[in-house]
Every structure is written in C-alpha cells, then in structure tokens.
C-alpha cells in the first residue's frame, strides 16, 4: 500500500480543475481565461494518472537487475499524453486567435469579443 492515499491526489486534481474553472469563468483578460483552461486540463491529467497508477495491475519486483514497478497496461499514461498534445495545440491556436483579435480591435477583453453576437 503506497504511503499516499489515492483520494489525496483526487482532491488536488479537483482543486486544480475548480480553480481553473473559476479563472476561466471570471477573468476579463482572454490570456487569463486560457491559463484557467490550462489549469483545468492539468487537473484532469493529475486525476487520470493518479487513478491509473493506483488501479492498473502492476508488479513491484527486482528482475535481472531491473528494479521497479512493472505494469501491464498504460491506458492512463497514454490518455494523459494525448491530453498534453491537445492542450499544446489548443494553446497555440488560442493565443494566435487572441493576437489576431488584438490586432483588429486593440483589445484582449473577453466581454468585448461579441463579433458573432446576433
């Protein structure tokens, strides 16, 4: 049994997600909103990896000099990697959009971005 219970990680992940949610909902600067989204994605990743680490069957052994934790599946790890890839793509496109809108409107305030408002 690992020293740290799994629900400690889950509470940290939930905290990250909710702090990011608060930031994404309430900040006026578009770059701050993007930071909130990044925090939410990181919270999801921490939760995925923690549950994978604690739930996937594994063997802790010393085999032919190779010590460590041997796993049978890496579902959670692969999922976290794909989330990181998508977060990187999202950050690049999102910041490009913010810069493009700043160029045309001289503003990064979310409440002024109502071009598609009917």
């Amino acid at each position, binding site marked *: 049994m*690992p*020293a*740290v219970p799994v629900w*400690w*990680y*889950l*509470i*940290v992940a*939930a*905290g*990250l*997600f*909710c*702090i990011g949610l*608060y*930031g994404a*909902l*309430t*900040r*006026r600067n578009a*770059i*701050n909103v993007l*930071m*909130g989204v990044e*925090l939410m994605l*990181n919270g999801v990743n921490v939760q995925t990896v923690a*549950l994978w*680490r*604690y*739930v996937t*069957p*594994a*063997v802790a052994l010393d085999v*032919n000099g*190779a010590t460590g*934790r*041997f796993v049978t599946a890496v579902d959670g*790890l*692969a999922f976290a*990697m*794909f989330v990181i*890839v*998508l*977060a*990187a*793509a999202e*950050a*690049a496109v999102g*910041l*490009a959009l*913010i*810069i*493009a809108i*700043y*160029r045309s409107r*001289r*503003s*990064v*305030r979310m*409440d002024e971005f109502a071009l598609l408002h009917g």
Partner: protein
Amino acid sequence: MIEQAFFLVLAGVTLGAALGVVTARSVFVSALWLVLSFLGIAGLYVLLDTGFLAVIQVLIYVGAISVLILFAIMLTRNIMVGERATNNQWAMGLALALALFGTLAAVGHQADWRLNDAAVVPAAGGLVLTGDSLAERATVPGALVIQDEAGAPTVAASGNIATLGRAFMSDYLLAFEVAAVILLVALLGAIVIARE
C-alpha cells in the same frame, strides 16, 4: 511518511500557485504563478512513479506553453493595466467552482476505487518466473512474464516507457496518428491566423 510530506509540500505549491494564477491582478504575474503550478504538477508525477510524464510536463508546459503565453502577453502588453481583472459574474463563478469542488472531493474520498493492492504478485510466491525464453516472449528487454500455476504465461509486464512505446505503436496507433495530424493542423492554423 516522507512521501506524504513531499506530497503535501507539492500539493501546497501546486494549489497555492494555481490560486495565484486566478487572483493576481497583473496577467504577467499570473503567468509566473502558472509556471510554478506546472512545476508542482511535475513533482506530483514523479511521486506517482511516472518520471517520463514529469519530463514531458516540464518540457511542454513549463518550457513551451508558458513561453508561448508570455509571448502573447508581451504582444498585447499594457492593454488592461489598472482595470478590473474580473467580470461581473465572479460571484456565480466562485459558487459554481466551490460546489463542483465539494462534489468532486466527496466522490473522490467516498468512492471505492478498486485499488490494485491484490494484483501485486509476490516475488517469492513462485508465480513470477524470469529467464531468456520468457523475456523473449515479452519482446522487450527488462520485461517479465507472469505465469499461472501450470506454467503458462498469463501476463507480460514491463516498465512504463517501454509499455507506453509499444502501446502507441499498437493499441493507440490510430489515435497517435490523429494526434500528429492535429499538431500539424494546429501549427499551420496558428501561423495562418496570427499572420499579418
């Protein structure tokens, strides 16, 4: 005990820095808090035995995304100095975030997660055998094969990175290729959108 102490320090740094991100008045200070929060998360990954993910976290989040955000701040600088940082729905957002946190924390604490303690095979139990022929079956150096009582191989296990590499090239091959295409499209899209 030492692991718990490390966890508490890292969790405090991560959550404290995250609070700094959403409360700092200056967007630049927010970005610096974000870097600290990402580093704390990398430490949590190390505690979770996933050193590879910790390295990726430092490379991509601390290295690339933070620098990208700082670039965007520099390009849109001094635009909101002295203004209100939050919009007028902050009370509703705070209530929603607190309610969601309470729910998630309660579920995380109460749920039966079916932890893998029972799946850990004891080395002395005679179930785990290693050797050249068995290692060949696993096809990865340093891998091990777990046998049942009759001697038939049941599970092939190996370290995180080797298993991850094989998973990307077999089970997740389609997702892996789609992720590559998404990165290419995002690269081109970011260039096209941000171009003068």
